[in-house]
């Protein structure tokens, strides 16, 4: 039996030393050391020996098992090492070849600007209000204190559908509709698409506006100026200042037009600002008490400010786009620049 054992061990050693793959070694392990292995078989056959020889032989078998296990483990390390070397050998790559990227498009520059504006207001607790593009004269003009004979109501300025139904000429009717539905305090912006009967190099019949409206107790012109400065600085940088000048709008009193420091020359004068150092941004003012009357808000208790500006124009200024028509051409050579 001892001789048998010796042969068995010898065979195992030879096989292990010849193994070249991890998988083969695992198989050899179960073949020689597993439950049904020959070595284990020797243990079963111990009783064939005289009792006096059993402990010594058992010890030999156990030692043999241990040695084989060690041999397998050290062989395994070698095999892993050589497999690793093979991987290094095989994977010789030209790493300067282009990586695999997913294709990616882009939002339109108007949308990118639109979102910037929404987000800067949302950060300050404003909500975004929406309203119909197809409006009536009441919400677009009357309730905004714009009299029936106002020139803005002309066919040459406003697209009409039928009777008093028209395409909104500004997003102000959304302000009216919001004030009709909600009580102060109100803090909204209404971005949206607006329409005017105008089509040339600097005017698009479809364009985009955003207006802000805040109504609460104690709202005043200082709040308006703070907000205009915040708005301009969030969009164009911390150096940008805003000024307001007296102007006229039917729905605000006092009314103002707002200018911001030209972001291109920072006020020193350039072609963009026609050497004035300032760019006109939009209109602003304190909500006219008449407007509050129309929507049933107590104009003694509440005051409010509103301002509005063109999103398209802001987009052009932000990206330095010079021709407004590019915005609606949807030329890929243009769109790809806003990735």
């Amino acid at each position, binding site marked *: 039996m001892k001789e048998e054992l010796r042969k068995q061990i010898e065979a195992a050693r030879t096989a292990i030393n010849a193994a070249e793959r991890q998988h083969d070694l695992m198989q050899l392990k179960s073949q020689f050391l597993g439950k049904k292995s020959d070595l284990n078989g020797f243990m079963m056959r111990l009783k064939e020996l005289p009792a006096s020889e059993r402990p010594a032989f058992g010890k030999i078998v156990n030692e043999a098992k241990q040695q084989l296990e060690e041999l397998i483990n050290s062989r395994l390390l070698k095999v892993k090492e050589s497999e690793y070397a093979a991987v290094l050998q095989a994977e010789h790559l030209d790493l300067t*070849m*282009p990586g*695999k*990227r*997913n*294709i*990616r*498009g*882009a*939002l*339109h520059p*108007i*949308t990118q600007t639109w*979102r910037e504006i929404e987000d800067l207001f949302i950060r300050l607790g404003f*909500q*975004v*209000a*929406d309203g*119909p*593009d*197809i409006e*009536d004269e009441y919400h677009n003009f009357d309730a905004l204190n714009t009299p029936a004979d106002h020139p803005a109501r002309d*066919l040459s300025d406003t*697209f*009409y*559908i*039928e*009777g*008093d*139904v028209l*395409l909104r000429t500004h997003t102000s009717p959304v302000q009216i509709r*919001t004030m009709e539905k*909600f*009580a102060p*305090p*109100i803090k*909204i912006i209404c971005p949206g*698409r607006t*329409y005017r*009967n105008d*089509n040339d190099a600097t005017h*698009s*019949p*479809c364009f985009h506006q955003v207006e802000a409206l805040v109504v609460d107790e104690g709202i005043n012109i200082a709040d308006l100026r703070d907000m205009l400065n915040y708005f301009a600085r969030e969009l164009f940088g911390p150096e940008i200042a805003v000024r307001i000048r007296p102007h006229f709008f039917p729905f605000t009193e006092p009314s103002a037009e707002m200018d911001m420091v030209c972001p291109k020359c920072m006020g020193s004068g350039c072609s963009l600002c026609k050497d004035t150092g300032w760019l006109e941004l939009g209109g602003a003012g304190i909500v006219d008490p008449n407007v509050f009357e129309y929507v049933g808000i107590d104009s003694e208790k509440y005051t409010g400010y509103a301002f509005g500006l063109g999103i398209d124009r802001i987009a052009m200024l932000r990206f330095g786009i010079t021709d407004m028509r590019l*915005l*609606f*051409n*949807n*030329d*890929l*050579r243009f*769109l*790809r620049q806003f990735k």
Partner: protein
Amino acid sequence: MKISYKWLRDYIDIDLDAKTLEEELTFSGIEVEAVEELGAILNQILVAEVKERQQHPNSDHLWICQVDNGNEVIQVICGADNCEAGKKVALAPVGTQMGEFVINKAKLRGEHSFGMLCSERELGISDNHDGIINLAGDCVNGEKLSRYYDLSDIVFEVEITPNRPDLLGITGIARDLSSLLHREFRLPNPELPAGTKPIRAELQLDNQAIDLCPRYTARMIKGVTIAESPDWLKRRITAIGLRPINNVVDVTNFVMFELGHPLHAFDYHLVEDHQIIIRRAGLGEKFVALNDEEYILADTDLVIADSKKAIALAGVIGAANSQIQSSTQDIIIEAANFKYSAVRRTSKRLAIFTDSAYRFERDLSDMQAELAGRRCCELILATAGGELLEGLLDSYPEPEEPVIVTIRPSRIKKVLSINISQETITNYLESLGLKQLSNGEDSLQFEVPHYRKDLSREIDLIEEIIRLYGYNNVETYFKPQKVMNYEIFRNKRNLTDSLVKLGFYEVVNWSFAGVEDLDKLRIVERDRRREVVSLKNPLGSSFAIMRPLLLPDILRNTAYNLNHNQKDFRFFELNKVFLQGAGKQAEEKYHLSGLITGLRDAIHWREEAVKTDFYDVKGVVEELLSLTGLSGIEEKYSKETWYQPGVGLDFYNQGKLVASAGKLDPKVASSFEIEVPCFVFDLYLDTIYNEKRKIVPDFREIVKFPPVLRDLSFLIDQRFDLAEIAADIRQSNPELISKIILFDEYKGKNVPSGKRSLTFSLTFSSINKTLNDKLISKEMDRIVRSLEKKYEIKMR
């Protein structure tokens, strides 16, 4: 901390039910974490009498008792030896809920038993479990045991915030409740007997660490008898989870939980030279505490010592060398106050966390120490006897100055937005023990009681006022209004962001269109989309109407870009479309439409360039619909006229059309001057947002058991659609089949014409068991048989 309701009632008369009291406590700032009812079991236990008993024939330690339960005589098997006939016993009848288990009819070694006779421990009366309880002879059979033993109590486990050490005793809670509920509060304030001879003759006190021990008082009682505490005392302290030890120790614990102020008792004869010295420990000084652990002290630790050794770690734990023993006769009662920071430092460093340290490290009151000592003596004299020595030793070199705080009603209004009268302010604060000193136009001055160290500023008093007024009684006036639906707002952004990541460029077009656009799309006359809104003064005939679809503009953008040498691109637009509405209000709806043309992917050296096909655009729609949170989408072949016949698909949700996708019909394409294959889609966003959607996903447990994968491959007639086949497969066992993936479709060589070969990969998984081969094979057989029957498939 645990509060016993019965104990609480020693100091305040309240009869609120547990639920109400729990709410009152929680909303006054004492959060109730758990409520436990004690002694309820006794309402189920009956007084009974053992009429006769005999040895159980099959057991030498069980007895068969015939028991009179007041109504009838029943048989109960009992394991205790003291269930002799004639005894009054406590019977738990069948159905009694004893903690975790229920008493059932049982058969014990062949003999029936209809109930259980209980020990004191089983009833929660005491720790005694040597045999069953023997009731007094005059207890009436059939009566509830609760008539004779009133153990019922309700224990509230409350969280005391660190700023309120005054609430670490039950009287503190009672005091707070009294101001909350306008009930009288009774604080124990005992008068002690004069005493025999003066304490000074027996004990010396030397405070060498005034900075760490602002006050130390000691009283002495001689000739006490250390014994078990009386029942009332045991019941009080067991109710809050303490174990009775002996009368003196139990009293010190009782007073700590009553007044919130820890005490310590020393055996007078173990105090060397009858001297108490308060000093800093020596660096490396060894100290064996009551818990028999040895600690090495630092010179920042404060100890109570005699002339030779430390006898207590001040405020943290006593020493083993001087503790009360059964032989103790003469005792010293320590009631002191220690600097909170020193106690905390020592307790943390040595990791000794006691009820005492917990209280001292929250900064207790010097004044309270004296009361606690007095109360402790009163109760020891009452429970352990002995004689009080005259007077007390009191080291209190710098008595606490009362704190004075001014409060302005105008400030209350500013912070709390409530209008309350000066009178109410005074009532609130006086009920908390503050004393009004003066009041002016807009200022009231109060003296703060010693036990409220947390009140030192005006704002602290304002907090007390709102606590009593009730946070939720403050009228609110700004009700936020939901002007916008933020979820939809965000979802729209999600959709467009995803399209960008899928390679789409957004286009923005005017809202105008010409009627000829509808003709080009072959939209029939009676189609709803022919009910367009027309402008009275348009820019021209191509701009005469408000567009009812986004598609024509996208097609024009496509033609323009194809003309400018662009071949592979994807466009989308999200915008409103317009139709005539009911009345003068037009119908305005948001749509999301798009187009794919050219190669599927950017050119890459590793991959073959592939042209887009229908399944690309379908994948886009599937992705978008899943982002909207719709589930259970149904697909039907589309009848939209701009799709190539048979290559357009509509998507329905609950019977409503929510999207369509398909190949642009080549003739339609031509009419827009497009001569390459284009695939387009259209989502009805407003319809989608009106549907029920899954906005927050439901979490499901991760399946612990490994899934089993099986392939299924067969030939099938081409007229059957995959959706139907896959649904049938899933239907065969929806609980087990977690995933069905179409792996491959093959037509051509070796497949008869009119047929196709489909290969699926099925994933089986179960949430509660490991799936074995046999079960899965059975399931597979079932699937195959049903498919054979319905579709006449041929397995491959």
